[in-house]
């Protein structure tokens, strides 16, 4: 180590090259798919040409009111995301705090994380009814385990020297948690919340699809049953858009809470 300040490697402002390359990759992929479908190498009755999908956007926006569906799914995701963050972080903190709870529960929480919870939708239908609450709860429950597990991992991974700094300043248990353990664990907690959101979105759209209720998942069922392949793929693009928006928002929140790592 030297005493000279190290320049932080940051992409210069206004450098759009990575974005342009990223966009160009997508365009190239779409053009390749279009070519393979038009030459018959990919069956157009399984995958519609991207040009038809792009054309279908206008139709699903005007005729299928996709923005309303989009907002419904996004709202369900938002509520599930807030719940899994609150309960996941609190659960992780409690399991870190109480060793017995951790020893008793961590294994089965990890097992739940790996289980295909979507198959439990009939149970949720019975408990909550065929409504948005079932969908939100499916998303919440499936996203909860990674959020809990990553919170525990983040807190345990806090460098011992930082804990000792806190001890040397005579911090109380609460101060130690608020001022050191929690901020130190924040990047790992966010990994858990991101994973939780992925699980939640999959299960929310999956449940909408299965119970044919609510937002984008239900629309995808409708379009698929009508064999409107182009429309189905266009609707799937909106599911991806929900995911992208949530990830961007989460990144902003993380940067706000912890400006630099």
């Amino acid at each position, binding site marked *: 180590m030297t005493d000279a300040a190290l320049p932080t490697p940051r992409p210069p402002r206004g450098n759009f090259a990575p974005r342009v390359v990223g966009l160009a990759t997508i365009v190239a992929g779409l053009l390749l798919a279009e070519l393979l479908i038009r030459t018959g190498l990919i069956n157009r009755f399984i995958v519609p040409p991207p040009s038809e999908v792009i054309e279908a956007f206008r139709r699903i926006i005007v005729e299928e009111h996709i923005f309303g569906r989009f907002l419904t799914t996004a709202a369900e995701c938002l509520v599930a995301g807030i719940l899994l963050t609150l309960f996941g972080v609190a659960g992780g903190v409690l399991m870190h705090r109480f060793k017995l709870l951790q020893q008793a529960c961590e294994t089965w929480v990890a097992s739940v994380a790996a289980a295909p919870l979507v198959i439990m939708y009939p149970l949720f239908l019975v408990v909550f009814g065929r409504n948005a609450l079932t969908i939100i709860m499916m998303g919440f429950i499936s996203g909860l385990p990674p959020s809990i597990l990553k919170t525990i991992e983040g807190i345990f991974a806090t460098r011992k*020297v930082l804990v000792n700094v806190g001890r040397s300043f005579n911090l109380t248990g609460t101060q130690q948690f608020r001022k050191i353990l929690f901020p130190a664990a924040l990047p790992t907690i966010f990994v858990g919340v991101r994973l939780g959101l992925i699980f939640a979105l999959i299960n929310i759209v999956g449940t909408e699809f299965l119970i044919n209720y609510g937002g984008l998942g239900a629309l995808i069922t409708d379009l698929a049953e009508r064999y409107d392949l182009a429309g189905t793929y266009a609707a799937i693009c909106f599911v991806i858009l929900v995911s992208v928006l949530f990830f961007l928002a989460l990144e902003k929140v993380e940067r706000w809470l912890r400006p*630099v790592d």
Partner: protein
Amino acid sequence: MAAADAILVADKIAVRFETAEGPVTAVDDVSFKVRPGEFLSVIGPSGCGKSTLFNVIGGLLSHHQGVVSVGGEMINGPHKSIGMVFQEESTFPWRNVTDNVAFPLELVGMPRDKRIERARHFIALVGLDGFENRYPGELSGGMRQRVSLARTLASEPKILLMDEPFAALDEQTRLLLGDKVLQIQQQLKQTTLLITHNITEAVQMSDRILVMTYRPGKVKRIVDIDLPRPRSSEIVTSEAFGRYVAQIWNDLREEASRGMRDEESHALHHHGAGA
């Protein structure tokens, strides 16, 4: 030195650990006193229990025998009179330099404006003006250690306790940071206890050096360093400095050799057992 003259007294400190191979005595019967404003270094070979002693004095290790007292008050746990600077990098990466340094002031509930002003004073003291809004990730290792030092100084401890704070730095940075610590210590008349294995560093900065034996760590000798003050890193070229380094190395060589032999036989034993 009478106990009444001392700001810090360590009396018959002993620490034993239970290991898989049986109990190990890390530190045994270590006693010394530190005068107000004095710079005392504790030096010894690897494995002599220096860091254990650091943890005992800092109150981070409670299962020890003997007594540590500050200003006549017996302590058993972290104490506001003792400010610790750790060997490992210990800045908070999520706080900028100002907020890192202001950390202890925040804990005592000082209003934000006032604590920022105080933090800037200590940032200037360690020579980091202009870096107030930088984050540790944007600083070099030496600068981060200076942030840690400023943070500890901001709590205005009676005793500054440092555990090999420059161990991870290169030699030139280490010498220059030594200058900075000396300058601050002389300016604040800060009582300082430095744990180190670096002879040059110890002689450059100390009024007295406590030489420890290899395991179990005991006090082998206490050497008075009669070099003129104020000092800087330039002193390392003087003849008297060289004599002190040679004298302490003579004391340490036997202990370091013993430590090396012990580690070798330990490694052989483990290799033999594992083979």
